[in-house]
């Protein structure tokens, strides 16, 4: 199994959620995070000077899926989260060795 960890713009979240639902991805864990990418945030002009605003608010989705679903999920994520502008975010794929449903004890690997 894999954990697909996507860091997206908050304003895209509704679209992303809907897109994932359509593809049958329901389970997910959401965290409010802050982040910056290689561009180091946004630069504002400011009375002659400049001010860099980094660590902008983002939403992080963690979705654990079977290996076979990873590609479909990534496509769904990138398609729905993309605006084409800086700050669109990143997706990381991390191996998961085991997943347990607490209610039933059911284990998947």
């Amino acid at each position: 199994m894999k954990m697909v960890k996507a860091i997206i713009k908050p304003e895209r979240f509704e679209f992303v959620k809907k897109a994932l639902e359509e593809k049958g991805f329901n389970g997910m864990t959401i965290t409010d995070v802050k982040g910056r990418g290689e561009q180091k945030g946004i630069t504002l002009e400011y009375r002659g000077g400049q001010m860099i605003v980094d660590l902008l608010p983002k939403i992080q989705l963690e979705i654990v899926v079977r290996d076979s679903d990873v590609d479909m999920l990534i496509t769904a994520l990138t398609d729905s989260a993309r605006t084409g502008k800086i700050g669109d975010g990143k997706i990381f794929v991390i191996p998961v060795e085991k997943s347990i449903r607490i209610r039933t004890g059911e284990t998947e690997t």
Partner: protein
Amino acid sequence: MAIDTGATAWILASTALVMLMTPAVGFFYGGLVRRKNLISMITLSFVAFALVSIQWVLVGYSLAFGNDPANSLNGFIGNLQYMGLNNVGMDPGAYSKDIPGLLFMVFQLVFATVTMAIVTSGFAERIKFSAYLVFALLWTTIVYDPLAHWVWGGGWAAQFGALDFAGGTVVHISSGFAALALALVIGKRVGFGKYSMEPNNIPLTILGAALLWFGWFGFNAGSALGANGLAAQAFVTTNTAAAAGAIAWLLVSWMYGKPSSLGLVSGAIAGLVAITPAAGYVTPMAAILIGAIGGVICYGILLFRMKKGLDESLDAWAIHGMGGLWGALATGIFAVAAVNGASGLLEGNVHQFVANAAGAFAAVIYAFVVTYILAVIVDKTIGLRVTEEEEYVGLDISQHGERC
């Protein structure tokens, strides 16, 4: 003319109450925007208070309450006789036989400030702070002061007999339609209608509403300018209309969804706005009608605004503008002579209704058109709106360098 200490005590207290409404508007609005603009929104109101306070003592009061000049501006705006509070003193004055002239002046001041604060709805989350300062000074001078003169300063509307007990026209119609004009000039927020922009802090909005209701007693009952039966009457009609507006909005909106706390407090404000011009002219039973109808109308206008995709999203137009319009008409309908000597339509006085309608529509047009022009001018010169990046990171950081 001697000072009545009871009247003076009540107007001192009322002025303090109304003063609190300006930051209250900031809290009300602040809770409704996105978190990244919360400080900005509160600050706009706070600045309105400071800025208009200075403008008013320097020139505003005189423009509003000075005598009519003997020129083409006659009936339109006051002269400069009270500039720098010249001739405004500790003794009763031209407008106040029971209270010090200075007290009347400052009581009027807090009305001017809260009006400016209401206007900030129109450019919420996208206004450039420096442009706001300039615009605010222009607006209060060119829009508010003349309107106050028309209705309260002996201008044409007063001469024509339009009734406005506590400022339905001067405060609410003017600010509501100004907000509409501003929203049209400045344009929608980026992403408006595409993704949801949820209120960041509903309890703060409710706190604002509670303080507004509280302060409104000073606003309306203080407008009796005395501690007397009329003040009590206005106090009761005010509270009753607010309650009726709150419940009406709650129930009507329940048909379309859940009974939300925001509906409740919006309805209360709608009721308060609607009763404002009528407070000292109608009975408490009429206040129930005025408030309840006000709640329903404003809710309907809000739905309409949303359907039209109009981004005047803090709804100064729907609630203050249209609620104020309804209130002005309602005053012309429900006024009864037994309360304060003036009869409305229901007592057969068609003229009163016409006068009130005329005053209100004139204010609608004046506020909308002049605000529109001012906004365009400021936009073309300084630029009203922040850059897209600034809007994206939020006004708190980009305009004030602060976060919350």
